[in-house]
């Protein structure tokens, strides 16, 4: 049927099945991929467009319903960079777009409001944006941007040498606010075949495939385990335990079994029950207790006792020291599977180019993807090219393979481009999760409130496959005593296989779970000795010169005490305010809590180098070739700022080529908060190397000033002015590498696991509805020692986004296979759930880092849940030892305690 409607002001005809979703018609048929699809179910709002001036989810409208109506998409807001609308410009300058996948929907929702209300209140903005989820920003900068439209702030254009420290708008930001950025599902060629994966409906089963010939006759291909050249992948070189397609056995609900390849309509039209799979269901091993039971069935036949790995840190005599302590606290804490819930589901497409494979995919780690795909395909790594698309959020979940091996295999075999885009339920069922943890902690201190001993055992449910389980089990024992000086330490981490989803990397690698335990211990010890909770932490904070439990002496940059000092005035005020409020109220109680953390930057005791290149072409273009993927955190911008200053040119003169494994060197993965520190240092060295080459050619001194004017490079060296004509010569290329100095940990966990650590302290104020058990977080103040804020706006964005995820971890997020596999049963915070977040940046310089910087990607999340849990305890007298603190759990605990709130 033909549908005639107005699209972005122009009369438009569209022909197709009228039940087609508007989102799909816009994206697939009309070429407007600015409208994003995150769920196809109304839950995320990424597809928000205006229809007759009202915001609608384009995934919930039939084309048949669009007849005669006016549709406006993000593409209507501006044609190009020079013509950004006021709202888009405000988003850009406020840093309201991080990964940018939610941005088109946010813009359209805000546009509806602003046409109606010139100067909206915060409440009106929240109501207008309530239907659009953002997983990156914590919403703070989005709300600010909408409220500030029209108050045009000046563009930040730092002079040469002044880029580091400036609130520069993100260098890749324009495409994010115009809808031009190309994410994993945005650039798929029209002639590509599509893959639909048939997945296990059972957590543990054996299966036999029936006759696939009828399906093969209907489709281009039906791929099974037998078609995969090497059917195993995994993060660690020696653990390739996860099959690309299951081979007779499935170990978690959502595991890939068969890949249907054909036209998009063709594969979607195959019902699951048309795929002949005969299942023999077995009782699944669910949870740590089941996995560690004496007679437990094995999840992987060759992994005795279901143990993936264990290890720990031992220093002094922990168990012998408790007897002499003035106060001892102990407790067992539990966390759930948590879903990354990036708004962009896994997506990409592949094509065979001669004897090479080219894969366009949303990812956090192009080089690891390249090597892994090559291994699965039994190709040389150089035969695989990964071209990262824009990445609509990762948070650790896009460090593992997803669509890659399937599209690679199909494209290689069929010689045609092949695409795969996960549905939301598929993304949630198939992808990795945060490890559920059970953490048993015991801490003791002396009469002055100085910590004496700590024992922590952290047990993790690593799900069906290893993924990043070893990383979590290694990192947690090093961090489990918290950011404190403790002389006697025994920590232990162990990860067990279960028939749950594979638990992998998720912002913090297990440290957020451990922080819930150690911070509860700090509160309890402080209370036992009647010492203020902040002062207690201040007394014990690791400082420069202290030795950690692994025997590492922190030479520099340990700013926890400064963070706590910065919070102290607000801490006292917030407590006074809460007490005043509580004096007037019986049914609602306010409380204030504090959480601290430390976080080792980069891999644990493992080499994790980065290599960067900066070129100067004969045409006079400076180009940073960066293999670091910007997943929204801002590395493209930060690297550019660092390079501009190290080279000595204005930041606007630095062009960027990012990610593509054919064009850039290996910068390592975007994880472990390492890109600013590790790749930033490599970029600084590359730029300095290029500068040295230029100065040598010009025979100029180290302080010379460079002025790049087309292909003429003018060098001012004191009063001396020299000109290099680049046009005739060769390109210059500077190179830099950096691998943070660490040492292996011995059997007692002694060594230097990380070259530097980030520190932070956060304060949370909450209000608890005692009758309903609901918790409203009223305010967060976050003080973070980041070494140096290369770009304060981006740093704040990382902190605010981390806080929102920490809030979700504390109060609402719990992934239950088969039950919360979509974004209406699995809840992440909306704009109305995240409070005002004040960021305080402490800059305790790290001499190893670029301009003194460390990382901040993960730390934002770690202290938030502990601070909220402490605040709930302060408000109600109840210590919640299991997260998420769902309303019914808190209400039941309040009733059970019978205790009067303090």
């Amino acid at each position: 049927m033909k549908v005639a409607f107005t699209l972005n002001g122009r009369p438009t005809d569209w022909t197709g099945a009228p039940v087609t979703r508007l989102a799909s018609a816009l994206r697939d048929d009309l070429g407007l991929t600015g409208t994003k699809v995150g769920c196809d179910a109304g839950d995320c709002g990424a597809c928000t467009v205006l229809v007759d001036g009202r915001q609608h989810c384009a995934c919930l409208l039939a084309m048949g319903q669009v007849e005669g109506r006016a549709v406006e998409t993000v593409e209507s807001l501006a044609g190009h960079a020079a013509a950004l609308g006021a709202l888009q410009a405000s988003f850009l300058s406020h840093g309201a777009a991080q990964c940018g996948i939610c941005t088109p929907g946010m813009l359209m929702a805000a546009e509806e409001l602003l046409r109606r209300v010139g100067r909206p209140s915060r409440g009106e903005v929240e109501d207008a944006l309530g239907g659009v989820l953002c997983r990156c920003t914590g919403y703070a900068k989005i709300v600010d941007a909408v409220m500030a439209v029209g108050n045009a702030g000046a563009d930040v254009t730092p002079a040469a040498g002044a880029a580091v420290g400036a609130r520069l708008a993100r260098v890749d930001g324009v495409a994010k606010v115009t809808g031009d950025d190309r994410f994993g599902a945005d650039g798929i060629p029209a002639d590509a075949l599509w893959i639909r994966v048939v997945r296990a409906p059972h957590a543990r089963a054996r299966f036999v495939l029936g006759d696939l010939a009828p399906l093969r006759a209907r489709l281009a291909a039906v791929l099974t385990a037998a078609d995969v050249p090497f059917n195993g992948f995994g993060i660690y070189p020696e653990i390739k335990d996860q099959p690309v397609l299951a081979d007779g056995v499935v170990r978690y609900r959502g595991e890939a079994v068969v890949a249907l390849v054909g036209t998009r309509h063709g594969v979607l039209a195959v019902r699951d029950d048309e795929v002949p799979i005969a299942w023999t269901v077995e009782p699944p091993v669910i949870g740590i207790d089941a996995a560690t039971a004496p007679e437990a069935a094995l999840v992987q036949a060759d992994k005795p006792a279901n143990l993936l790995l264990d290890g720990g840190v031992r220093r002094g005599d922990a168990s012998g020291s408790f007897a002499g302590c003035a106060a001892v606290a102990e407790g067992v804490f539990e966390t759930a599977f948590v879903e990354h819930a990036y708004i962009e589901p896994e997506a990409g497409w592949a094509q065979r180019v001669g004897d090479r494979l080219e894969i366009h995919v949303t990812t956090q780690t192009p080089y690891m993807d390249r090597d892994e795909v090559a291994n699965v395909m039994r190709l040389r790594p150089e035969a695989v090219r990964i071209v990262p698309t824009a990445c609509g959020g990762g948070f650790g979940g896009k460090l593992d393979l997803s669509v890659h091996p399937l599209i690679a295999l199909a494209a290689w075999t069929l010689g045609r481009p092949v695409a795969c885009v996960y549905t939301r339920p598929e993304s949630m069922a198939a992808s990795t999760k945060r490890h559920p943890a059970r953490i048993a902690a015991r801490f003791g201190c002396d009469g002055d409130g100085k910590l004496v001993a700590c024992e922590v055992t952290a047990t993790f449910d690593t799900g069906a496959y290893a993924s990043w389980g070893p990383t979590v089990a290694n990192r947690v024992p090093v961090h489990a005593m918290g950011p404190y000086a403790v002389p006697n330490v025994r920590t232990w981490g162990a990860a067990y296989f279960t028939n749950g989803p594979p638990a992998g990397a998720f912002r913090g690698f297990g440290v957020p779970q451990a922080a819930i335990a150690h911070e509860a211990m700090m509160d309890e010890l402080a209370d036992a000795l009647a010492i203020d909770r902040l002062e207690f932490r201040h007394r014990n904070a690791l400082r420069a010169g202290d030795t950690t439990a692994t025997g590492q002496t922190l030479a520099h940059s340990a700013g926890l005490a400064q963070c706590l000092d910065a919070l102290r005035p607000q801490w006292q005020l917030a407590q006074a305010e809460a007490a005043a409020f509580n004096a007037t109220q019986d049914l609602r109680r306010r409380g204030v809590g504090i959480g601290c953390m430390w976080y080792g930057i980069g891999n644990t005791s493992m080499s994790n180098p980065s290599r960067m290149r900066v070129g100067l072409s004969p045409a006079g273009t400076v180009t940073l070739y960066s293999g670091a993927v910007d997943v929204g955190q801002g590395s493209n911008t930060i690297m550019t700022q660092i390079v501009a200053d190290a080279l000595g040119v204005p930041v606007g003169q630095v062009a960027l080529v990012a990610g593509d494994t054919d064009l850039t060197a290996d910068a390592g993965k975007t994880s472990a908060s390492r890109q600013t520190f590790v790749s930033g240092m490599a970029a600084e060295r590359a730029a300095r190397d290029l500068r040295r080459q230029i100065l040598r050619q010009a025979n100029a001194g180290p302080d010379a000033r460079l002025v790049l004017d087309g292909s003429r490079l003018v060098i001012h060296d004191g009063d001396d002015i020299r000109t290099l004509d680049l046009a005739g010569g060769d390109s210059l290329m500077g190179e830099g590498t950096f691998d943070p100095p660490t040492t292996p940990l011995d059997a007692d966990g002694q060594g230097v696991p990380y070259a530097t650590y980030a520190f932070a302290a956060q304060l949370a104020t909450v209000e608890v509805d005692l009758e309903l058990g609901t918790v409203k977080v009223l305010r967060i103040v976050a003080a973070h020692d980041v070494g140096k804020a290369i770009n304060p706006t981006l740093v704040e964005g990382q902190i605010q986004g981390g806080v929102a995820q920490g809030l979700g971890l504390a109060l609402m997020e719990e992934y239950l296979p088969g039950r919360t596999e979509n974004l209406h049963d699995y809840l992440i915070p909306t704009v109305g759930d995240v409070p005002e977040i004040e960021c305080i940046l402490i800059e305790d310089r790290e001499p190893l880092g670029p301009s003194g910087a460390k990382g901040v990607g993960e730390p934002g999340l770690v202290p938030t849940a502990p601070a909220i849990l402490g605040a709930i305890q302060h408000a109600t007298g109840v210590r919640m030892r299991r997260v998420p603190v769902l309303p019914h759990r808190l209400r039941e605990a309040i009733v059970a305690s019978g205790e009067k709130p303090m």
Partner: protein
Amino acid sequence: MYTNDMAAYLRPHRLDEALNALARPHTVLAGGTDFYPARVGRAITEDVLDVGAIAELRGISADAGGWRLGATTTWNELVEADLPPLFDGLKQAAREIGGRQIQNAGTLAGNLCNASPAADGVPCLLALGAEIDVASHGSRRRVPLRRLITGVRRTSLAADELVLAIRVPRPRHEARSGFLKLGARRYLVISIAMVAATLEVVDGRVASAAIAVGACSPVAERLPALEAALAGATIDSRLPDLVEPAHLASLAPIDDMRGSAAYRLDAALVLIRRVLARLAT
């Protein structure tokens, strides 16, 4: 009409065309906010009847007997309509349905016909004593809302029947209503429990009360024992004290990931007291 391989899509402008079409089974499509989420990642091959263009299903009107809310009235149209305080509760519910996008698309009849135990419109309309106009080719009937919805995702609609409108009778006295919803986050949230109350008031006393609770039984329920206990009571700050746990005995909540059964009952009781407290001031 359009046919691709197998599926038809009808978008008639006239009611009789729609009713004629239903001689053959079609899935009715209104705002699509329940229809599309149930069809993620698969081809849509069923025959669809889109009721959005039928003028008779649209709009809100009033006569001596009460109000007629057309089946395809959206939540947002309801919020923007000029209606007396009797509808405050329903409007409060409308503002808490999903986010703005859902409120702009989702319809009242869609909410009822989808028959989710957590449908926010149902307790409100039960507490308004709503009746539903239903039509098929050649016949019309009016049923009380509670008899339209027969169970979890089940209604008494025959395959050839459409909901035309929701009828809200005019109360005999001054009336006010309220709604409270409990969810685990601020926007876009499925209710753990919700409560709607309508009070008719004469001389500062409750002339009649209608109280309904949702998400605590397969279909939202009125609480007749409580309504009886409230009748005649003085409307002041002590009104909520009349609510007793026994009044909720007819509810049968379940345990699920959003809340335990015991918690739901507990919460419903609190919500009822709070909504009454609000109506009493």
